[in-house]
């Protein structure tokens, strides 16, 4: 077979919400060129689908003697109310050709009804989402989506296709997709690549633990030597994705009049942040320096800006409930957070503050505090408002304008991952804890025990759900708290090893190991302001090794670890994204901000390494289709398909 060309390769990565696609491999790997919402709309004919919402509209066309064309009736606006007969025919001024009127000035006019269709790209009413939690729930619709993407990109015949497979797809699902691609698209070569493996290609590593935080689910996969470990894999762990965080916000803020859409945008805004476990919430901080109490926050710029814009629902209710709660709060108790948040941690912090802090004066530097220190912050809420809502409903396409306004929120914006108060089906300690437990389970299930330590040290966190500021840090800190083994007891019996800093007066009583970026704090460091720790622990000349590596500590040599293997994890780290020399700034998945969660956030809203899966797919496609021409059995060719059928796709180990 002649070699494939870069510009012919078609990549499709379906997701529950967005499907990424690209035709041709660019010189440097870039985010996907096309992003299709993963939804289709039922067409008029059963079993067919349209990419956009199609409205059936009826309009009455005036047929007058002589002239067929409907007349623009802009000048007759005043007469509109009279024109409503049967079907409401009135139309806003933006649709001039639609309105019909009979003012009696043209007796010969009769109206006939004419049906026409109009695409409405903004609406998602009646949409069918073929993928739910990674699972393909509506096959015809999914295939229609693939066809739509294929048609939109219209590749030439000699186009190899690579589809990124969700881990949850069963063997039969993969066969069905294979069959569809070969028979509908007549592809000369097809590759179905596991998303976790693609992420590894994106990071250029053979062994990693891939955590893919999606919309409604999380996948946790241990990849060793480019092989996906199916056993113990966390497949489509439900209730842990981005939606779960939005749900939590709705739960916290719903009583204050926040809609789901508001919460969704709040989650995406750069003021929403997940604080590492043990970080005190602002406004209740035990470290007195930040005296950001409500009084101070009220005078900050964010609040001032609010005066001019329509007020968000956050504030009014807050003052309303204050009295009802009947608590003497001395201005430090954030009632709103208690009413809705109700976490014991929060209350404990308040309690602590009452005893330890004096009411600080308003901090004049309040505006320059990092987000994590501000008690309140506001974000820009954008919404599409339908113009002249009622009138246009039945006829004519609705017109939208974009409105934006500032909404102020309190500390709820830090509580995205706190456990839901409504127990429901699961006794969860929050989604981060669920994910951490799944990672632990997945890594323990890897049969090659010698790889486990490496897996802990190479976490890859991808997926748009992980875009929320501080997500990675918070996840690492949960893992550290729950699972990291203490450096074996003997260390503390002897002198402190050189790579452990000596205890400092930050409230820690045990040394906190400082490693390179990505190294999380030791559990002992919890409950301490990470900024403070970072400032006092600043010793840049430290060797980059792991704490407790046997070679560094003579006492460890006494431990007989040569037979079998030892327990994991000793440490946990995220992998550094590769430097590709392009615009993909390492975003939330870079862990340089271990100590100061407020500093990162450059990649907010951008497509950083959250989409490492797609980048990896480009790299893999380049390797499989262009460079090694199928030598590594990276794809299935049409000839092989004709011989062995769709089930042969399983032999192409991706």
């Amino acid at each position, binding site marked *: 077979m002649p070699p494939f060309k870069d510009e012919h390769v078609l990549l499709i990565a379906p997701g529950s919400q967005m499907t990424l696609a690209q035709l041709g491999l660019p010189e440097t790997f870039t985010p996907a060129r096309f992003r299709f919402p993963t939804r289709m709309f039922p067409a008029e004919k059963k079993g067919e689908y349209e990419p956009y919402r199609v409205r059936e509209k009826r309009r009455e066309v005036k047929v007058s003697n002589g002239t067929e064309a409907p007349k623009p009736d802009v000048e007759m606006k005043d007469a509109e109310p009279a024109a409503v007969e049967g079907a409401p025919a009135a139309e806003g001024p933006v649709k001039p050709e639609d309105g019909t009127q009979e003012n009696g000035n043209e007796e010969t006019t009769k109206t006939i009804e004419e049906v026409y269709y109009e695409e409405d790209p903004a609406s998602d009413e009646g949409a069918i989402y073929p993928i739910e939690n990674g699972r393909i729930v509506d096959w015809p619709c999914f295939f229609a989506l693939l066809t739509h993407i294929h048609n939109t990109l219209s590749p030439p015949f000699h186009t190899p296709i690579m589809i990124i497979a969700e881990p949850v797809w069963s063997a*039969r699902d993969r066969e069905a997709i294979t069959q569809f691609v070969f028979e*509908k698209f007549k592809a000369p070569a097809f590759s179905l690549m596991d998303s976790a493996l693609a992420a590894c290609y994106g990071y250029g590593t053979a062994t990693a633990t891939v955590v893919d935080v999606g919309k409604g689910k999380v996948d946790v996969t241990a990849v060793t030597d480019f092989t996906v470990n199916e056993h113990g894999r966390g497949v489509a762990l439900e209730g842990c994705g981005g939606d779960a965080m939005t749900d939590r916000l709705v739960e916290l803020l719903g009583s204050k009049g926040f809609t789901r859409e508001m919460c969704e945008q709040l989650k995406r805004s750069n003021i929403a942040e997940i604080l590492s476990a043990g970080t005190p919430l602002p406004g209740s901080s035990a470290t007195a320096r930040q005296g950001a109490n409500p009084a101070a926050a009220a005078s900050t710029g964010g609040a001032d800006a609010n005066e001019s814009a329509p007020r968000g629902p956050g504030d009014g209710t807050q003052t309303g409930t204050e009295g009802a709660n009947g608590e003497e709060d001395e201005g430090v108790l954030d009632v709103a957070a208690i009413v809705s948040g109700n976490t014991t941690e929060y209350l404990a912090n308040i309690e602590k503050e009452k005893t330890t802090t004096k009411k600080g004066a308003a901090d004049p530097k309040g505006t320059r505090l990092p987000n994590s220190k501000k008690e309140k912050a506001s974000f820009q809420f954008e919404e599409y408002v339908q113009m002249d809502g009622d009138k246009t409903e039945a006829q004519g396409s609705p017109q939208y304008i974009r409105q934006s306004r500032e909404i102020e929120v309190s500390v709820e914006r830090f509580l995205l991952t706190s456990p839901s108060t409504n127990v429901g089906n699961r*006794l969860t300690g929050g989604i981060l804890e*669920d994910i951490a*437990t799944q990672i632990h389970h997945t890594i323990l299930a890897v049969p090659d025990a010698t790889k486990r330590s490496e897996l802990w040290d190479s976490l890859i966190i991808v997926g748009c759900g992980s875009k929320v500021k501080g997500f990675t840090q918070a996840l690492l800190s949960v893992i550290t708290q729950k699972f990291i*083994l203490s450096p074996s007891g003997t260390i503390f019996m002897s002198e402190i090893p050189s790579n452990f800093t000596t205890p400092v007066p930050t409230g820690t009583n045990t040394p906190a190991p400082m490693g390179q970026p990505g190294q999380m704090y*030791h*559990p002992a460091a919890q409950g301490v302001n990470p900024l403070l720790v970072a400032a006092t622990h600043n010793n840049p000349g430290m060797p980059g090794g792991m704490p407790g590596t046997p070679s560094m500590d003579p006492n460890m040599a006494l431990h007989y670890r040569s037979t*079998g293997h030892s327990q994991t994890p000793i440490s946990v780290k995220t992998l550094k994204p590769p430097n590709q020399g392009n615009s993909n700034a390492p975003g939330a998945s870079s862990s340089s901000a271990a100590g100061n969660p407020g500093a990162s956030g450059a990649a907010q809203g951008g497509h950083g390494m959250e989409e490492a899966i797609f980048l990896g797919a480009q790299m893999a496609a380049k390797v499989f289709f262009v460079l090694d021409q199928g030598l590594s059995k990276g794809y299935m060719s049409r000839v092989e398909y004709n011989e*062995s059928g769709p089930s042969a796709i399983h032999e192409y180990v991706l």
Partner: protein
Amino acid sequence: MNPSNPPQAAEYGGDEVSAIVLDPGYSTTRAGFAGEDAPKSLIPTYYGKYNADGQEKLVYGDNIFVSPRPGLSIHNPIGRDGIVEDWDMAEKVWEHSFVSRLTGTKAGNPFQNGLNDVDELPVEMDVESEEKPLSDSPLLMSEPGWNPARAREKTIEIAMEKWDTPAFYLARTGVLSAFASGKPSALVIDIGASNISITPVHDGMILKRGVQHSPLGGDYISSQINALLKANNPQPITITPHYLISSKSAVEAGQPPQANYKTFPPDKAPDASYRALLEERTLTEFKECVVQVWPGPTRLSAPGPTGVSNEDMARNTPGRPFEFPDGYNQVFGVERFRVVESLFDAKAAIPDPDSPFPAPTPAQTIPELVKASLAGVDVDIRPALLANVVVTGGSSLLYNFTERLNQELMQIFPGPRVRVTAAGNTYERRFGAWIGGSILASLGTFHQMWISKKEYEEHGPNIVEKRCK
């Protein structure tokens, strides 16, 4: 090829379907396609049950380890002796094992699944509306060597009637393990979770009179570890699973743990059986990291060759540290050899009155089982069996297990050549029976062995006794 030329019209028209191999065990259930080298789907046989919104809900798969649920209790459809007790649930668990990762839910009506052009819809055909999960895959299942006839008939009944498989076969795990190591004749020693079993296999046929089994499997070793932890010095150790701990702090070895525990309201707290399941996870880790089999040649309690007793020798090997989920950590010395010693020496069992396992009798130990097994087979084939001892099963992965087994067998049978084979690869050891099934079902010559649906309909479930010997 010119990219603007349309491709040839030749299309795949074959109907190659690979069989599904299902190897249900007490602790895990393995399922995958025949011809592959590892089962694609591995789920715990345990399932969870809880009430939510007034309904009883069931949880299958790995998820039971990850998310605790209110009032969750854990059950196992298979009894301790390896025979199914709860058929309804066994069917559901097994079905989950292949539906979740292999067959998936059906793509639906072929006329509407997008794969076919729907220009002309045929007249409404009388299609069975109820989809059954296996209607287009043959199924090979495994069973323990002592499976009673009633259970075998029930199994084929489920496969044929509930799952609608077109062809079925039931094979003994021992035979399959022998196939996996490429031996038609072998003495298969399978160390599972609930049982250890000895199966003599000759020319691919099981020698029924020689089949021996005893309950000293992985779960028994766990109970021994529990007994050890209970009697631990300076203080007894209790295992608190991860789900009950919100954070822990580092403590020195042997010091009491410092952890923040989670509390659940009593009406929401998971059942004790859930806690037991998760404690078992920690014990598994303990077995992997700490437990060692005394390599022999003599027993741990015996005096060593140099006059120093074996116990003292073991004591001199460096200990191995282990940290429990609540942060408690300790170095384990000679104790780590003791917990498995009773597999070979019944007297060495650590006594524990609360254990669900009664103290082992000498007849239950591996050397005695092998003796009993060989006594049940023809004298002529004994040397052939001893020269082909196959060790399989997850618990046989204990460090130094095969060395010790080899020593024990050489002592009992000094005459004939004893050769112990054990796969070095963890997968091959744990999934020996499955892999054998995968090989068997993909053989061309195996096709005549299948019991077809038609035969089943003609002869009834009893056919399994005649065909699957």
